[in-house]
């Protein structure tokens, strides 16, 4: 009979443990995040310096009114928003790519952000038509909620169209994304045409993608959704790994596939929706971050998801610093910065995939 096992095989050194390496990365990314957050608090149009503030605090002096306003009401909410939105965008990208089993799936590219955007625009322009009682109930949550609904419907639609019997067609996914984005764009166009001047200013500002509108009020509405969505996504690590082998195999391994797919779609829609609602169309974070992390420490979602949250947060806060300082005291829309960083990476992935996947 054939030799069944090579007796020396088990003595061979075990291959490098990429999961352990990816988990060590948590610490480094967290440190980088703290550093970049402190830097972000220091940079700005006014001359308020974090070190000066720390020094005067250490001496027991009270903060000047200027310092308090700049730090606590402008820079801090902006920082918190950057952290939350960056983490949400990167994690949505990673979850979506796991769900569609393709590194090109990103809420911005396959039309989910556009759907969320349509929801937000609907709320901004037509929200006033709602009965006052309902409007009062929804309050500041109206725009994030509408964006979430828009994102959710587009994700469901996309999944229905692009996935058959557990297999995703990349071509159909990208094409359906184009159709969804075009449709959302058309409806949004009609709404923009109908909008009055104030609404128009809101829309333009919001469409370019920016963290400049950050305020504690907006955060109060969006932060809980972002936090729940991102923490919910952290539960998906093992399931997304199993899903990489296909839906049937994931079920054989013991994953409740339908349930986890519903959770994944909800998380993506909530995270993308809330992020789009407060900061507009910031693209490419969701595709660049997971891709870099997979290159650095492998595709294991148990480590990839937390790492994506950390790196996404750091990258967006960093991009925001760039957008504030390149043309200071004016601001570059942050969507431009992330696109300049992200579009080449997207093209690069596309080129690498060309040989492997038949689009």
């Amino acid at each position, binding site marked *: *009979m*054939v030799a*069944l*096992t*090579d007796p020396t*095989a*088990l003595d*061979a050194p*075990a*291959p*490098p443990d*990429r*999961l352990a390496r990816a988990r060590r990365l948590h610490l480094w990314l967290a440190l980088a995040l703290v550093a970049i957050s402190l830097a972000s608090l220091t940079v700005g149009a006014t001359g308020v310096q974090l070190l000066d503030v720390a020094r005067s605090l250490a001496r027991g002096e009270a903060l000047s009114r200027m310092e308090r306003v700049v730090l606590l009401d402008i820079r801090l909410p902006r920082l918190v928003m950057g952290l939350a939105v960056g983490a949400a965008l990167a994690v949505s990208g990673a979850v979506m790519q*796991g769900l569609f*089993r*393709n*590194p090109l799936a990103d809420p911005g590219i396959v039309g989910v952000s556009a759907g969320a955007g349509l929801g937000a625009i609907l709320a901004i322009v037509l929200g006033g038509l709602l009965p006052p009682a309902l409007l009062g109930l929804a309050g500041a949550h109206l725009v994030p909620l509408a964006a979430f609904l828009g994102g959710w419907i587009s994700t469901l639609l996309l999944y229905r169209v692009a996935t058959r019997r557990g*297999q995703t067609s990349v071509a159909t996914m990208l094409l359906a994304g184009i159709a969804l984005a075009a449709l959302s764009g058309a409806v949004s166009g009609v709404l923009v045409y109908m909008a009055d001047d104030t609404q128009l200013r809101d829309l333009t500002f919001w469409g370019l993608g920016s963290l400049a509108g950050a305020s504690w009020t907006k955060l109060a509405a969006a932060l809980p959704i972002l936090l729940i969505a991102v923490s919910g996504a952290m539960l998906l690590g093992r399931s997304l*790994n*199993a*899903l*990489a*082998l*296909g839906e*049937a*195999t994931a*079920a*054989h*391994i*013991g*994953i*409740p*596939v339908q349930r986890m797919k519903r959770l994944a779609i909800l998380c993506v829609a909530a995270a993308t929706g809330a992020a789009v609602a407060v900061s507009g169309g910031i693209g490419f974070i969701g595709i660049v971050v997971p891709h870099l992390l*997979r290159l650095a420490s*492998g*595709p*294991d979602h148990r480590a990839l998801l937390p790492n994506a949250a950390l790196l996404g947060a750091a990258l967006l806060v960093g991009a925001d610093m760039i957008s504030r300082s390149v043309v200071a005291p004016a601001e570059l829309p942050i969507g431009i910065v992330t696109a300049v960083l992200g579009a080449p990476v997207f093209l690069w992935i596309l080129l690498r995939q060309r040989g*492997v996947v038949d689009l």
Partner: protein
Amino acid sequence: MLEARDISVSLGRSEILRGVDFEAQPGQLTAICGPNGSGKTTLLRTVTGDLPCTGRVTLNGHDIARLAPWELAAMRGVLPQASALAFPFTVLEVVEIGLSRGRAAGQARAALQALARVDLAHHAGRPYQSLSGGEQQRAQLARVLAQVGAPVDADGPRWLFLDEPVSALDIAHQLEVMQIARDFADAGGGVVAVMHDLNLTAMFADRIVLLARGRVLSAGPVTEVMTSDTLSRAYGCRLRVGLAPAPGTPFLLPHAARLAAE
């Protein structure tokens, strides 16, 4: 044991299986054979719980329709015909995906042992996607072996469901994989395999369930099912079964002409 009663499956308008009864015992290797399109894979997917069907399937006395996915996964592993992998996992990582709880030290070792079993330990750190088709098939078998663990434990026998496990393999690895399945059955586990190669089936299987056009044409011990007459009827071509000299297992020699042509 595995018991399926009165199974019918329709996909769209066509009925793939009609009133099929199927049984498999732990300690045995049961082969599902039959021509292309006879419903072999459909029957396998029904008894693994992948496909909804009319009728009832019980595994170790449990109605599989009532078991949660993780309960079923603890009882049986399934090797699909082909598996595409998204993302660049290594061979070892693919095997570990099948393991249920985190990665205790013993589990990482279980994964490496399963890889050694299919003669792939030396490729553990390689990207799965860089393996050849046959190597990928063996890596998937290692994943299934790591998932089910011991062939039998306090909770009863474990089961392997293999869909054409040797279709992409060279002759040496065909024998090796069939031997792994045989050993699993000999140790008390149950094995159900969809097989195309009737000679390999004759060498390794205990029982054959022969399907034709969605029905069971014949089921029983290898020597009873593998007769020239039955096989010729099932496959629609003239086939002659002889007996190999030493162990007395049947072997098959196809004739060139199809029955239909005569």
